[in-house]
């Protein structure tokens, strides 16, 4: 898919990032912008180190990060074991699709913050609510990607398996699932992005831990350097997860490269 050699544009990326960093340093070091609005890069770096050592609002940076990752991880786990089979059924059976598709398309475009109050009323303000919110945000893109991947499977591949004596279950799990796996993994990557961004919304509700909660409390206390440091940590974790999933994609769906 990528025809250009990797890293051929690394120069442009580095130039852009470098210029932004220089501009940031210039406007803060010269006193043009008050540290209350934008602390300098040095101060942020110091803050990250301090957060790692001493924490903020009663928990260390690691505890905040672990709490957030656990919520997203749990939601992701539930989504994988429900949305992938649901998407498989939607792709394989038009009837299941007719039943589920309107439901998914109805709630999918609604911002999670809009239905968060309802989930709070139903499930309270504990962990369950946060995991459900992220889970719902992840479920739709994953189920839709799985269903469309299943529908794109070459019908001759299924016929070939049937003529070799495959049962319905064998066709589903040994032919359709691996055929759709590249689409499923892409869906997973998109879903993880959506899930991670829903996290901050979920942690606005009576959390005592989590990166979203940390940033939120820091902003209420006007500790701007923690806000910026928190945003950077959230971004870096998202990037790390993205890279991890790309590796998994290459490992399990690398065969698409030659098609």
């Amino acid at each position: 898919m990528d025809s250009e050699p990797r890293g051929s544009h690394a120069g442009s990326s580095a130039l852009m990032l470098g210029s932004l960093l220089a501009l940031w340093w210039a406007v803060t070091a010269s006193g043009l912008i008050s540290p209350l609005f934008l602390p300098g890069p040095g101060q942020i770096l110091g803050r990250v180190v301090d957060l790692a050592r001493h924490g903020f609002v009663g928990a260390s940076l690691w505890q905040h990060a672990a709490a957030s990752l656990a919520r997203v991880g749990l939601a992701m786990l539930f989504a994988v074991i429900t949305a992938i089979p649901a998407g498989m059924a939607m792709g394989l059976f038009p009837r299941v699709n007719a039943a589920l598709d309107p439901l998914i398309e109805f709630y999918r475009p609604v911002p999670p913050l809009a239905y968060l109050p309802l989930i709070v009323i139903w499930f309270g303000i504990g962990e369950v609510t946060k995991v459900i919110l992220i889970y719902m945000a992840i479920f739709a893109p994953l189920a839709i990607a799985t269903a469309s991947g299943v529908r794109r499977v070459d019908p001759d591949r299924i016929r070939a398996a049937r003529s070799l004596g495959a049962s319905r279950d064998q066709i589903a799990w040994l032919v359709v699932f691996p055929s759709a796996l590249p689409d499923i993994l892409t869906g997973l990557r998109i879903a993880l992005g959506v899930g991670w961004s829903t996290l901050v919304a979920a942690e606005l509700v009576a959390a005592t831990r989590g990166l979203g909660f940390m940033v939120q409390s820091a902003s209420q206390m006007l500790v701007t350097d923690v806000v910026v440091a928190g945003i950077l940590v959230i971004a870096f974790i998202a990037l790390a997860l993205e890279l991890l999933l790309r590796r998994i994609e290459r490992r399990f769906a690398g065969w698409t490269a030659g098609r």
Partner: protein
Amino acid sequence: MAVLSAKGAGVVYRSARGPVEALSPVTLDVGQGEIVIALGASGCGKSTLLNMFAGFVAPTSGQIVVDDRPVTGPGPDRAVVFQDDALMPWLSALENVAFGLRLRGMGKAERLERARALLDEVGLGAFGGHRISEMSGGMRQRVGLARALAVKPDFLLMDEPLGALDELNRERMQVLLLQVWQATGKGIFLITHSIEEALFLATELVLLSPRPGRIVRRYHPGFARRFLAGEPIRSVRSDPDFLAMREELTLAILASEEEAEAHGQ
């Protein structure tokens, strides 16, 4: 010896513009040890005929039987080789050949060993570990053939298996197919739009004509057996009988198409 037969089997599709006859009722036997070839232009119903034999499409009239047992769906006694290989690209060549054996629960060591022997037989012994995406069209067709042979079918159903290959590869595959046929005695049903291919391979050749698809002529060329008896391929394919039949078939196809067009007006 099993015989795969179409007994007055035809297919009528329902469409928005009324019923469309894809294939008029056909009666045709494919015995083990025979190579029956359906030749015709696109739209003549030859794919429908193959899909009925395979059990992918149910006839709307008549029936398909193996000896006296009606065919109700696809099964490993009638393995199919497809034009676009239809292999599993996430598996290696070896695992693709072993796929049908895996479906019936054969252990890994045993099925890979059998697959290795079959890959050897189709001349790909050294390529077992290769990914499908690394293989040429001709190699993929060999893998597809080995995969079909692995389940020990009585019949091989081949859906324009050589249609996408260049001339030389095509002839190589034809020779391989004849060698496999001689060694195993399978009943082969193959569809093609190549007159030369049909003439060279067939023990029975049926010519189909479009709109509606139907058998218009039957021939019994003996060139495959002459080649297997030791006559060089160039000599067989330039034999005056071969060339004369080729011309006759060409004229017959042209005539049937003109007739079909006249019907369509």
